[in-house]
């Protein structure tokens, strides 16, 4: 009988030990241990360097950077939010920030700098950066981390073979098509690869033409506007050209894969991928370069220039046990020093205005120096990435309709009406 009891007690003891181990912020060394969750392994070193700079001055704090892949990140973070076990600091994305902010799962950081410098945010971060950290109530729920733009990546060898001048800031949509045709005729390779993507595709064209995906109110769609429809039609019809692969091709081969295996001459790429592509395709070094997006030749309104700009931020939970210390760390992450370390690591363009050059300089390490300045130049006319709190509901529907237009299952007009309805329905469902 005694033996039996022991056996029964054993699992209970184990469970208790595990539970204790699980919430192990109780530190033996008297330090405050913080966790910092991110999703991009390429930025781990940069983030760690930034944390080290903070802990060097605050020896009583230790910060551990944890990487979770993008695909698991949001499932995990939501589960952590439900059980009140969120990491102390974590990256927040515009896709999700409205949801977390509106449900009170991330702390309001609007007055983070009030004691030192009340106008800090507005002084050092662009309007687009600040829009990316706002909740539906317009308050700041994160410290801006970085900002990005979308540019045109092109294969120099194919341009040379076709005798076409490289893309520059004078380029329009017409030049894009003309060059694509010439490259296709001369080399048999694809020209501009226009695939069914929003941020790296049609959104840019729509805003260049003076159209919009979301109207000023942030709820109504812009798919009923002539300017939006004209740009969408132009973009979708590109796949009918011989020099552009169709959506079937892109379902199997992404434009990036096609580009770096030298099957096509151009595609749109976000600046956050450029450093990794330089590192991953050493054989391609010197064969490709980047340029600003071509402009719309006859926009319905505006200058004809636009690029979609997104940005991440650092956030924390309002229920954090060490909220004061965490806020101090966040204050440092948003400081010039913190942002400079991030930029110099090559991770991303710092959100802090005036530090863009730190990211550009990272590319000096390569023998062939890409014209990465173009990504920074485009901030002058960048447009905030399309977002409202219903986005997770309408985005899959809009993508599906886009595919149906591509496959001919749905007419262009019905598709536009369907997208407009999808946005409306998503807002009404709430």
């Amino acid at each position, binding site marked *: 009988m005694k033996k*039996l009891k022991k056996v029964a007690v054993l699992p209970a003891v184990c469970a208790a030990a595990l539970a204790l181990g699980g919430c192990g912020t109780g530190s033996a060394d008297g330090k405050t241990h913080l966790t910092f969750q991110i999703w991009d392994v390429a930025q781990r070193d940069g983030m760690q360097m930034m944390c080290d700079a903070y802990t060097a001055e605050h020896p009583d704090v230790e910060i551990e950077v944890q990487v979770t892949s993008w695909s698991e990140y949001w499932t995990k973070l939501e589960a952590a939010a*439900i059980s009140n076990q969120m990491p102390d600091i974590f990256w927040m994305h515009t896709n999700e920030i409205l949801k977390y902010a509106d449900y009170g799962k991330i702390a309001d950081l609007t007055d983070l700098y009030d004691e030192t410098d009340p106008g800090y945010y507005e002084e050092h971060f662009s309007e687009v950066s600040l829009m990316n950290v706002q909740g539906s109530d317009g308050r700041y729920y994160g410290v801006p981390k970085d900002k990005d733009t979308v540019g045109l990546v092109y294969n120099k060898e194919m341009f040379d073979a076709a005798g076409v001048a490289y893309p520059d800031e004078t380029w329009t949509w017409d030049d894009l098509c003309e060059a694509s045709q010439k490259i296709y005729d001369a080399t048999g390779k694809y020209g501009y690869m226009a695939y*069914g993507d929003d941020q790296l595709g049609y959104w840019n064209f729509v805003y260049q033409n003076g159209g919009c995906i979301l109207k000023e109110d942030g709820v109504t769609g812009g798919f009923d506007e002539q300017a939006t429809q004209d740009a969408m039609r132009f973009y979708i019809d590109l796949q009918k050209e011989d020099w552009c692969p169709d*959506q079937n091709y892109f379902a*199997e081969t992404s434009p990036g894969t096609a580009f770096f295996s030298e099957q096509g001459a151009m595609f749109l790429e976000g600046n956050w991928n450029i450093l990794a592509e330089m590192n991953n395709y050493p054989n391609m070094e010197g064969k490709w370069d980047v340029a600003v997006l071509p402009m719309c030749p006859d926009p319905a309104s505006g200058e004809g220039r636009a690029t979609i700009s997104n940005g991440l931020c650092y956030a924390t939970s309002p229920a954090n046990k060490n909220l004061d210390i965490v806020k101090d760390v966040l204050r440092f992450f948003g400081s010039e020093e913190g942002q400079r370390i991030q930029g110099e690591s090559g991770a991303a363009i710092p959100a802090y205005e005036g530090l863009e050059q730190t990211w550009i300089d990272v590319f000096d390490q390569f023998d062939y120096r890409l014209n990465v300045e173009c990504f920074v130049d485009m901030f002058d006319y960048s447009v905030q990435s399309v977002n409202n709190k219903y986005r997770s509901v309408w985005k899959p529907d809009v993508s599906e309709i886009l595919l149906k237009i*591509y*496959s001919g299952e749905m007419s262009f007009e019905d598709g536009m009406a369907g997208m407009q309805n999808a946005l409306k329905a998503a807002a009404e469902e709430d």
Partner: protein
Amino acid sequence: MSNVAVKASKHARSESRWAYLMVAPTVIGLLVLNIYPFLDTIKLSFSKTLPFGLYELRGLENYIEMFTSPEFWRANLNTLYFCVLTVPLGLFLSLIVAVMLNAKIKGQTAFRAIFFLPMVVAPAAVAMVWKWMFNTEYGIINTILMNKVNWITDPNIVMVTCAIVAIWSAIGYDAVLLLSGLQNISKSYYEAASLDGATKLQQFFYITLPMVSPTLFVVMIMRLMSSLKVYDLIYMLVEEANPALSKAQSLMYLFYRESFVTGNRGLGSSVVIWTVALIGLVTAVQFWGQKKWVNYEV
């Protein structure tokens, strides 16, 4: 006499206590990991879910939305089509492989290992490799066929492609199960039959098939269940950007998209409950049907 009885019951009691203790880990695991989530899913299927685990009970709303959605019926058709493509052919091929592996040939163990290998490889890896082989422009299959078949993006072909990969992945496992059934058949039946002048084909149909039918039945039930639940393979082969997605979307894929892409876990849960009911129904029909063809006499 009474003394003995008391002793026995004492013994039995202590033994049953041990028995409970021994099954406890499994039972607790089942309760926590299977039963509780299942009950929770039923609850969710009657609710509108909000972010962060919040929900509001809404009665039959999700089921009404589900049954009136063409996408849902399309997913049902796709799933049934997938079953029709994979189950009969898969079973037939597995049986042939099992019979061949049962024959006395050189390197028998090596062959068994080779056929079992696909089962050991992660499904995601299997799908990745097949995806490259099926690539329209650069894939090895189209290169050999000297043709440009849109294996993965043609709405009329995409399910066949998925079925090919599914059958390839499952043959080894099913064949090994069937093989164990074949090895239980006594040699004397075959000796007697060949003395009576039965051909190999006759031996297969009149001895092998009836004798292996109980194993075949088990394999069939398992294969049909996993075909009704197909998800990972299609998810890996058919991406969001694929125009053929609507013709390849199975019930579980629909559940995934509703629950984790759109964030509508209530509707996702109703799809799951429907699938459970469907699997239950199909399995019940099979158990009823087995009386007609499964032979339990030795």
